[in-house]
């Protein structure tokens, strides 16, 4: 891609070296982080459920995931007889690769000042570079593209297993993913409108300055809430984990998988949790923004970034430990009848707010028009939903 604006003067060996270093560091960091995320989740859930959890392998059971990983490598790799051989092998890799790729656009550090486009660089080997693997001009769209490709991993895994329950699990997964992708995309667009750019680096640069310039505040919290709910659904995490509802579907789409292929799905799932948390921090919480105290100035932003990500990792585990699973129709109702209308309205409201600011329209007239639009749209929506409910009830009475 003709992406990184810092490559204006062509690419030489040093640039390629730095790029390679970034990729290796990001890859290694993600793998290690995933390992500890699995431990963190198990330990935290045990605490919340008054259990001890893993405590044998290493101090506080820290090496438990490592032990599990080694065990996965040495297990027999089973493939059901009536599975589709090629697709069955392909599916885990689609999941794992897309999980890795979407992390590439997250800026993990760098000191950002108020002036967009000029800051956030660090000096490595005499070159100014961003602390993120890539900063393509399409930025955040890459995340949406990757999460839509990730659906293939789950869907093909379920189909190629040649078994009923995985197929049901994967059909549920694809329906859920395409329903929530719309809400996810629209809450991202709200941020993009405010920032005026798709690049994640510039989105972070726009939030430099303090908590009151974070998009969490300037976008009015609602896009963040919609994003959090939709992301949880995209990740197939509880309370939206109907994809792998054990009581109904054995293990869901990966029932027939074993050994290293199962480990890849597992890895992708936890890696996606980390990536989504990182994306939320980037979009709404100023990315690596935070006060810099003393000593290494480039070190503090990364610390802040990681602490913010940790908060979201905790929240995801917390969701899992406390919320009961939704029923399938409740899931669809929440997605289509609540989240999408809400994010659509909020998107239009933010656009109107921006237009008013740039064209200097009258305050009262603008917001009166917004309120009128909300009233009209809301009335139409509620009427439509009522009519739908009535038709449904009539149907079930007739049957």
């Amino acid at each position, binding site marked *: *891609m*003709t*992406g990184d604006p810092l490559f204006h003067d062509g690419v030489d060996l040093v640039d390629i070296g730095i790029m390679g270093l970034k990729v290796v560091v990001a890859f290694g960091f993600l793998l290690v982080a995933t390992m500890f995320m699995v431990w963190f989740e198990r330990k935290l859930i045990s605490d919340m459920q008054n259990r001890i959890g893993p405590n044998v392998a290493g101090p506080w059971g820290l090496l438990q995931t490592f032990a599990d990983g080694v065990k996965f490598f040495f297990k027999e790799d089973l493939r059901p007889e*009536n*599975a*589709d051989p090629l*697709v069955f092998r392909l599916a885990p890799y689609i999941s794992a690769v897309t999980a890795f790729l979407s992390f590439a656009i997250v800026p993990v550090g760098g000191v950002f000042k108020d002036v967009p486009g000029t800051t956030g660089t660090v000096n490595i080997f005499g070159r100014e570079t961003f602390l993120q693997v890539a900063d*393509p*001009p*399409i930025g955040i*769209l*890459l995340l*949406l*593209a990757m999460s*839509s*490709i990730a*659906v*293939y991993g789950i*869907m*093909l895994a*379920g*189909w*190629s297993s*040649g078994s009923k329950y995985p*197929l049901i699990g*994967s*059909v549920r997964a*694809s*329906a859920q*993913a*395409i329903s929530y*992708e719309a809400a996810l995309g629209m809450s991202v667009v709200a941020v993009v409108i405010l920032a005026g750019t*798709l690049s994640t680096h510039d989105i972070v640069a726009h939030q430099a300055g303090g908590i009151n310039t974070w998009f969490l505040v300037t976008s009015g919290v609602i896009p963040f809430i919609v994003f959090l709910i939709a992301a949880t659904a995209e990740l197939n995490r509880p309370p939206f984990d109907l994809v792998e509802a054990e009581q109904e579907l054995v293990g869901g789409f990966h029932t027939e998988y074993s050994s290293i292929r199962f480990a890849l799905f597992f890895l992708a799932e936890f890696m996606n949790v980390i990536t989504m948390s990182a994306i939320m921090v980037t979009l709404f919480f100023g990315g690596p923004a935070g006060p810099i105290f003393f000593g290494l100035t480039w070190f503090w932003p990364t610390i802040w970034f990681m602490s913010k990500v940790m908060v979201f990792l905790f929240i995801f585990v917390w969701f899992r430990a406390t919320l009961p699973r939704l029923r399938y129709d409740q899931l669809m109702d929440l997605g289509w009848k609540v989240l999408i209308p809400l994010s659509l309205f909020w998107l239009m409201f933010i656009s109107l707010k921006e237009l008013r600011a740039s064209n200097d329209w009258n305050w009262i007239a603008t917001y009166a028009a917004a309120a009128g639009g909300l009233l009209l749209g809301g009335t139409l929506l509620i009427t439509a939903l009522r009519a739908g409910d009535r*038709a449904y009830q009539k*149907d079930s009475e007739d049957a």
Partner: protein
Amino acid sequence: MVAQNIAFGIISGIVVFSALRMVTTRNIVHSALFLVAVLAGLSGQYVLLAAEFVATTQVLVYIGAVMVLFLFGIMLTKAPIGKSMEMTGTQWPIAAGVALMLGAVILYSLIDQFGSDRLTEGGKIYRTADVGDEVFSTYIIPFEAISVLLLAALIGAIVLARKD
């Protein structure tokens, strides 16, 4: 430009191969997956042309939504694993002929129109913002027309799916 040409050649090879396999394979899900490969290859070509926005939109809309719906529909109705012989009907030579003729017409019109044009070095690269500006100024009427058409299709689908 050498690297671009090599990449273009490789991607084109993959696209042509996948397109041929898409119509010759005997498994309907494999067929859909080869179509995904074709669309992904086209998206790669857009990146080579420095049209990143079009490339991601291709992935988001065609691979992420349209093809997922295709596969979804296939899996909900009938998607046997293994070969199904009825996949290739008896009329395939006619279909191949039509496809060849259509390809020839498109190829002829493209070469006739743009055959001698050269891409200028350092020409304007259209970023996402430029694409947005163009769509909402120069091409606003076609854009709105397509939007209304899509809305009509949406309402039509709902009306057809209703039982009463």
